[in-house]
């Protein structure tokens, strides 16, 4: 894997190697909390923060860390960061924290984070590692929000319900379009269906792109490619 520039890291994380769509890492929180957009947003942002900070710290200390003890050190760094994020959520977004429950502390076990520390941050400079953390974190967060919004729309026929968990103020039940939706989308199987649709959509877009790219190539090159 090459380190590349900041922008390239963002593209890689957001699309090419999206942790949820391509690497299929961190699926437990992805499937469990995406019942609404707001839940997906909360956990997505928390994961993004932890991933960026842990990448920065692992990359910054990489010269002093011996190979033999790197895993306990990653675990230590990630667990401390998650504890800090949990305390901050409890202090500033208490209702969101209760709604996400155990899944905030469980960010510790999100394999996408330790994977980025091991695969990328421990071998690359700080700036590229931060770019990688933001790219991967944002890729994961956007996927969580998209699946959350999709399941909320289909399952409850509403969007942005409980937005008050982010902004404070009176309970807000979202913009409702119908009395009830397709309950299946909210239930656990709906999470699997939604993720499958998202992966299929990404593969479809990639496939279309590669076809149109091939079509633009001169004929001789196209044949050589085959």
């Amino acid at each position, binding site marked *: 894997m090459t380190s590349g520039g900041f922008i390239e890291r963002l593209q890689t994380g957001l699309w090419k190697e999206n942790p949820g769509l391509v690497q299929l890492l961190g699926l437990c929180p992805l499937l469990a909390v995406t019942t609404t957009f707001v839940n997906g947003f909360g956990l997505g942002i928390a994961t993004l923060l932890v991933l960026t900070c842990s990448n920065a710290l692992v990359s910054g*200390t990489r010269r*002093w*860390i*011996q190979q*033999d*003890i790197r895993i*306990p*050190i990653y675990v*230590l*760094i990630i*667990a*401390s*960061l998650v*504890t*800090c994020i949990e*305390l*901050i959520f*409890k*202090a*500033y977004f*208490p209702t969101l924290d209760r709604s996400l429950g155990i899944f905030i502390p469980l960010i510790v076990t999100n394999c996408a984070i330790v994977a980025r520390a091991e695969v990328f941050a421990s071998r690359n400079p700080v700036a590229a590692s931060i770019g990688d953390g933001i790219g991967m974190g944002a890729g994961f967060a956007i996927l969580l929000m998209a699946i959350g919004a999709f399941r909320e729309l289909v399952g409850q026929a509403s969007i942005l319900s409980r937005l008050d968990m982010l902004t404070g103020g009176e309970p807000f039940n979202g913009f409702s379009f119908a009395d009830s939706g397709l309950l299946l989308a909210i239930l656990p199987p709906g999470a699997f269906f939604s993720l499958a649709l998202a992966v299929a959509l990404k593969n479809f877009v990639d496939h279309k792109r590669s076809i149109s790219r091939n079509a633009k190539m001169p004929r001789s090159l196209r044949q050589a490619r085959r």
Partner: protein
Amino acid sequence: MNDKTVIRTGLTLAMIAAICTSLVAATYQLTRERIAANQKALLEQSLQPALAGVFFDSGVSESRLVLAPPHALPGNDAAVIYRVFANEQPVAALFAVTARDGFSGPIRILLGVEYDGTVTGIRILQHRETPGLGDRIESTRSDWVFQFDSRSMGDPVVTGWAIRSDGGEFDQLTGASVTPRAVIKALRDTLIYFDAHRDEIFLADATEESE
């Protein structure tokens, strides 16, 4: 690994652990007060529904009295009593007690009662009763719990604190009689306890918060 590298790796690990611990400790110090305030606000908010119509000017959570088992209230876990005051005069008390004989597991009940023994409101805090049958004791699923508002021990008398099919004055739930029976029994016992120990309850010192 020779001795020297063992010491070196040990020191590195200790350094990183110290840095991480101070990071967590600093965040804890910065957020501690806000978290405590949030928890207090949440508690007071959750107690409000059982105190409908009661004016008070004291903080609900500071007046917490915890009775460790064994006590004379329903349930064999700790019973919690919140005392509410207006102008330093006692006005009402909230009881968090447990009915042990529910259909499936204990039912945690919040009962608000005015100083004169009148019920201000009842809410079910926690239960595992059958969905669609016993779970109608929840205020969001049916208005069953509201029939106790402004009743008291004496209205009806002790024997009237039962479901109709047991010769009492309160509605049962269609298809579920074990659940209402358990809840009403716990309410009855709590009201009897309140009448017998009222002054004691309001004079007792608040239980210290334990971390």
